[in-house]
């Protein structure tokens, strides 16, 4: 395991890149996109792998500005580097990804430059997924994801959209479908017909672009639907989710 000094700001250009900031870096074939990312995962092998896959800034537009292996390191590194996106593992020594989310909550709601979290985990158990999403992560992808898809997801999250893996969409559908009782607050607790449709297509493995074509709407609309679902999931009333979790013996 590496010590914090080593992990903070791996490529040293962090400060410079921040100065370059939102002015779109003149990257190669990335259409001028640029995003600063921190990797949080307790397996060094995995961090190295991800770094190798997405870290070529000229090609992908992704710049890994920091790595961390546990909760304390993560909070330190994230506060110090202020990345735009954090790739967060769910299972971490020191309290897990949920703890990182809890301690970074002020950074997430920062108006100037919010830090956004994308959970990247090997686990696709329902309690992990729902846990980090409720903690404020903007998306959830499993580690089987390909490099290009991951880069795509990172940019999506950076732009403020939600990224759902098919499995996550399945969990959400399940959570909302199993509650047939009349909801307390229509807006928050119910998914609209359209949102359901979008989620179903995600669960069936469609990409956002394909969903847009299928439903004759724009990709932006798809994204706003997905974001709405995420918002509902974070705010949906506790009672319902608890009931859902107990029914599955998650708590």
């Amino acid at each position, binding site marked *: 395991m590496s010590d914090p000094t080593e992990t903070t700001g791996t490529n040293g250009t962090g400060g410079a890149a921040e100065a370059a900031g939102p002015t779109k870096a003149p990257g190669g074939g990335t259409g001028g996109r640029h995003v600063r990312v921190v990797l949080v995962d307790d397996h060094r092998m995995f961090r190295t792998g991800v770094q190798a896959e997405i870290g070529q800034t000229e090609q992908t537009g992704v710049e890994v500005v920091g790595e961390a292996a546990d909760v304390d390191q993560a909070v330190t590194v994230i506060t110090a580097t202020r990345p735009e996106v954090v790739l967060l593992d769910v299972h971490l020594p020191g309290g897990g990804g949920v703890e990182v989310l809890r301690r970074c909550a002020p950074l997430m709601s920062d108006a100037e430059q919010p830090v956004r979290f994308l959970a990247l985990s090997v*686990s696709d*158990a329902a309690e992990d997924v729902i846990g980090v999403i409720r903690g404020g992560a903007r998306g959830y992808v499993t580690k089987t994801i390909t490099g290009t898809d991951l880069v795509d997801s990172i940019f999506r999250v950076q732009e403020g959209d939600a990224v759902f893996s*098919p499995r996550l969409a399945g969990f959400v559908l399940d959570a909302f479908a199993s509650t047939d009782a009349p909801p307390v607050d229509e807006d928050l607790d119910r998914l609209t017909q359209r949102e359901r449709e979008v989620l*179903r297509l995600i*669960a069936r493995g469609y990409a956002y672009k394909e969903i847009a*074509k*299928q439903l004759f709407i724009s990709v932006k609309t798809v994204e706003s639907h997905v974001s709405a679902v995420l918002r509902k999931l974070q705010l949906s009333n506790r009672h319902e989710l608890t009931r859902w979790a107990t029914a599955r013996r998650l708590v």
Partner: protein
Amino acid sequence: MPGTGARVTIVGMPEAAAVPLVEPRPPRKLYRSSDGRWLGGVARGLAGHLGLPVVWVRLVFAGLFMADGLGALLYAAFWFFVPLGVGGVGDQKPPALVGTETAPDGRRRLVARKPDKGQIVALLLMVVVAMVFVGNVNLGSGAKAYLLPAVLVGAGVALVWRQADNARRARWVEVGRRRRTLTLLRAGAGVLLVTAGVSGIFVLQGSAAHLGSVLQAALAVLVGITLLAGPYLVRMTQDLSEERLMRIRAQERAEVAAHVHDSVLHTLTLIQRNAENAGEVRRLARAQERDLRTWLYRPEGTGKEEADEPTTVADAVRRNAAEVEDKHGVPIEVVVVGDCPLDEGVGAQMQAAREAMVNAAKYGGEGGAVQVYAEVEGRTVFVSVRDRGPGFDLDSIPADRMGVRESIIGRMERHGGTARLRAVPGGGTEVELEMERAEKTS
């Protein structure tokens, strides 16, 4: 009496070499029955053990009661020494009992719960016998007065002891938490009865005048003992529960270790042997991953012993996908929403879905993982199987190729469902299967 295992003499062998036909079964142990008992379940347990009707045993006890109360003593002794078994709930009793020797009657009643005529008769008899006993026994007028307090004490003791039995039973059979007040009430009533009985004896002994001071002294002693021994007792129970917790944890860890050892090491060995065969390595790794996942994330944590045939939609879809994945070496991602039991139509749908998965793996596998999505919503069961292969046009397939037409479309239509094939916008094929569930299921 026990151990009368049938013996078989094998022709051509000396008599001495005769072997028991049945495996020497575990020695039959006597348990008290917790089902349908009146007091301690002794009679029931004995009846089950001996293979006699319960009534007989009860009658014998009642009869023995006449012999200077021997029956009661015997009963109490049994109650004290024989552990409680779960009659008909657990399999504490040897299953070999069923159908053997004399009367299966006793056994059957053991399992049954509702009171039968025999019980009522025996109860009446017991009351009568007790009355006769009380009337006839020559106790002397002085001793007779002690009878009521003695009965009180007996009833209280019985109440409390049964309570203890229930607490023990609760470990095997989950008893609702609502019963807790009832439990406390019963314990309280028992203690009250015993106290009343004992006080009664004191009063009768003529030491009524001293009763107050005696009670005071007793109370003082009790308080003293509690103060002295209390901390030790608390500590002991805490240690005990902690130890139990540790043991459970150790057991669980051992189970995980055993599983990991068994399957993961085995797979790793296979992978080392097949290192140059990429496809095989991938298949092994995937199978292992799936196995470990079900084992780790299954709600009950008992994913090891599965029934032979899947009984629900989620189960069937996952099983089919796993099998196809293993056979064709193409990753299949499964998402299931909702669940319901299988019926005939849905079963056919599962078959069709499997066929679709096979097709997708065979012809569309090189484009990436096959995605399977199943949803149960209300009465409708929907399954979609989608690949990212080159795509395919049903009309361009020669009429003699029956795979899709018969196994998927035909099968669905025969059972009243629908099947649709269509090209996916991004390339690839998607098969959508829809079926209504049968009426009777809830």
